[in-house]
């Protein structure tokens, strides 16, 4: 290995943000007066000083090569004096002080193959995890499902179709939820449905048994001797398929090509506007993995979006609409089957049972 000419340093932390702020932001920092959304991907912020800042929001696939990042940098040089930012949902924002640059910038961005949109009562970019691109415990791919879903939801991003309120869709490829999807209007979640399979031959060579036993959150893994060799046994009824054991011991395989798949949840939100934050609730317990385009998942998501768009009132998020009309109506309108899997059986499950006779008949 060649000696590096660079002197490493530790504990320096991130660079200070101020050096990356465009002059108009430095000047008006903390002194913005109001903003207006002008179109699906363009908004203007007006400062107390009267200065105006136009933001053009651009959707990305999150997984990007340096070639594309350099292309974005070229555009930011051409239009934005060399400044650019990303949002919390993997969108790029180009910041302009001259509104005459909006249209040429949009044209250049679209020519590169990237959509402008996602603001206001629209579907913003899907936040998601690594999936089969890079994760060991993924029950499905992330980027592929997201791409297939966003191809269909594209009109709701670019503003060809509007919604009653904003909509946040999120994807996580297993219950660990690196994407923390559990408070999204629509959450797509990869699920394992079977306990890990133990390779008793490899286990003693690859894994420390005490660490493996300790890794199980439900205590389902016990030391055992199999064919005279030290190994473990798994109480399958106790397993909730988290994959933690697979993380510490590759001989406990959680991934299963036949029984892994995708579930769909709806009605979560994180903002406090109108109603308090909510968890997403189960709609579809399992759909099989059908790469490359997961048509069953795409159809289910589109169905949910369309039924919501046709029935919710202005400003009503998915969960607020369902709270108003009731879950029986939601299942009736969307046509999804309600099963025993929809009834919670984890701790505090009883809090989700309906305990009133006041029902829509």
């Amino acid at each position, binding site marked *: 290995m060649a000696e590096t000419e660079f002197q490493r340093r530790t*504990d320096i932390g991130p660079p200070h943000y101020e050096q990356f702020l465009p002059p108009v932001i430095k000047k008006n920092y903390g002194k913005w007066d109001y903003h207006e959304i002008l179109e699906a991907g363009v908004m203007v912020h007006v400062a107390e000083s009267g200065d105006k800042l136009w933001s053009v929001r651009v959707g990305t696939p999150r997984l990007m090569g340096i070639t594309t990042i350099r292309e974005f*940098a070229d555009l930011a040089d051409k239009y934005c004096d060399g400044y650019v930012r990303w949002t919390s949902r993997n969108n790029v924002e180009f910041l302009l002080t001259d509104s005459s640059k909006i249209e040429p910038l949009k044209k250049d961005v679209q020519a590169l193959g990237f959509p402008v949109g996602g603001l206001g009562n629209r579907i913003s970019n899907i936040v998601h995890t690594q999936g089969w691109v890079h994760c060991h415990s993924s029950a499905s791919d992330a980027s592929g499902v997201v*791409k297939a879903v966003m191809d269909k939801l594209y009109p709701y991003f670019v503003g060809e179709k509007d919604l009653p309120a904003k909509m946040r869709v999120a994807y996580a490829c297993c219950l660990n939820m690196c994407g923390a999807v559990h408070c999204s209007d629509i959450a797509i979640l990869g699920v394992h449905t079977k306990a890990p399979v133990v390779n008793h031959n490899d286990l003693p060579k690859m894994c420390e048994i005490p660490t493996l036993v300790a890794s199980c959150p439900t205590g389902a893994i016990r030391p055992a001797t199999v064919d005279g060799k030290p190994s473990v046994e798994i109480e399958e009824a106790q397993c909730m398929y988290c994959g933690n054991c697979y993380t510490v011991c*590759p001989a406990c395989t959680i991934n299963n090509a036949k029984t892994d798949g995708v579930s769909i949840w709806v009605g979560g939100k994180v903002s406090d506007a109108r109603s308090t934050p909510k968890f997403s609730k189960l709609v579809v317990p399992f759909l099989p993995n059908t790469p490359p385009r997961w048509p069953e998942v795409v159809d289910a998501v589109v169905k949910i979006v369309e039924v919501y768009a046709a029935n919710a009132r202005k400003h009503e998020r998915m969960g607020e609409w369902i709270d108003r009309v009731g879950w029986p109506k939601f299942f009736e309108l969307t046509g999804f089957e309600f099963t025993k899997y929809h009834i919670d059986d984890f701790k505090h499950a009883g809090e989700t049972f309906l305990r009133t006779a006041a029902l829509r008949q």
Partner: protein
Amino acid sequence: MTVTKRKTPLLDELEKGPWPSFVKEIKKEAAHNAMANDVLGILERSYEDHISHWKHGGLVGVMGYGGGVIGRYCDLPDEFPNVKEFHTYRINQPSAWFYTTKVLRHLCDIWEKHGSGLTNFHGSTGDIVFLGSSTEALEPCFAELSAEREDMPSFDLGGSGSNMRTPSCCVGPARCEWAMYDTLEACYDITQTFQDELHRPFFPYKYKFKFAGCPNDCVASIARSDCSVIGTWKDDIRVDAAKVKEYAANGVDIQTEIVDLCPTSCMAWDGNTLDIDNSNCVRCMHCINVMPKALKPGLERGAVILIGAKAPIIGGALLSSVFVPFLEMEPPFDDLKELTEAIWDLWGEHGKNRERVGEFIQRVGLGNFLDEIGLEPIPQMVMHPRTNPYIFFEDELEEDEA
């Protein structure tokens, strides 16, 4: 570098359609990078097999750090030798993800030299993610990122494992009129203050901070961080009555869109004047969101501190709950740091392995937890007082005192 082009009929299907394609992104790098080309190959294999071909890696990282690099190996090293080792760097992003093109190109150049050329802008916690490095390349890449330079800022790694994870924040006062405190500075200050806790895992499990400037919570802090800092205000909503009328004239139905949707029914509209009972307002942001020119948050500003959000693993998903109903958020944020250290001391000593602080609080009881860290119980912390009468009374009610 010349790279043999792979046949990827399944992935090619994901180049179609209007949304930008991650397959195109991988292919662009695969044309000249052998690692990216093998990612393409192994991903196509996953699409054939319906299963991931990655294994979690044991201990890899840079010297002196316990976090910041996620070890990853593939289970088909003979077929895809260039991704035999394919580790991930988490690089601590600047507050609110602002960049100059100069620094972006600098990061691209380093990554072109040392890795696959593939990135996430950004990972779920907020870091810049460099996807795919060999074990050998880890140290030189880190040295090049962190070295002191005259003309370029240096970068450090983010968190992974049982440590403080990389804090993140919303766009805040940089470009939002609703930022009730300086989220960028709070995020930067907390990150710098707790560098040791960020890089060296010695907690029971991860601990996340997210800084949201207002209750719209654009960084999902209440769902995704052990410590959620959410901006709010104490005084009255500022009303520009003329602008309210302007919104009404331009098609906003003040009664149905504003008044009827107020969660505490603290507003009234007589067709002329919007009346707000501020003493009953919970600062939910709805009316301000709909009429940003006419209604603005008050000027006595700070944040609500909520603790304990997490995803399902292990004991079920939690949202953060109220600890401090109003905290002034002025640098150097001493009160937040003091609260944080008190929480870490208690949870660090008594938390079980892989027990998030929210789960720990449920196990020991919020009341006991508050006792230990020295916060008074107040009604803002609960939806309602307990309904069950199984109260564990403490020694203060001795018979002879009753």
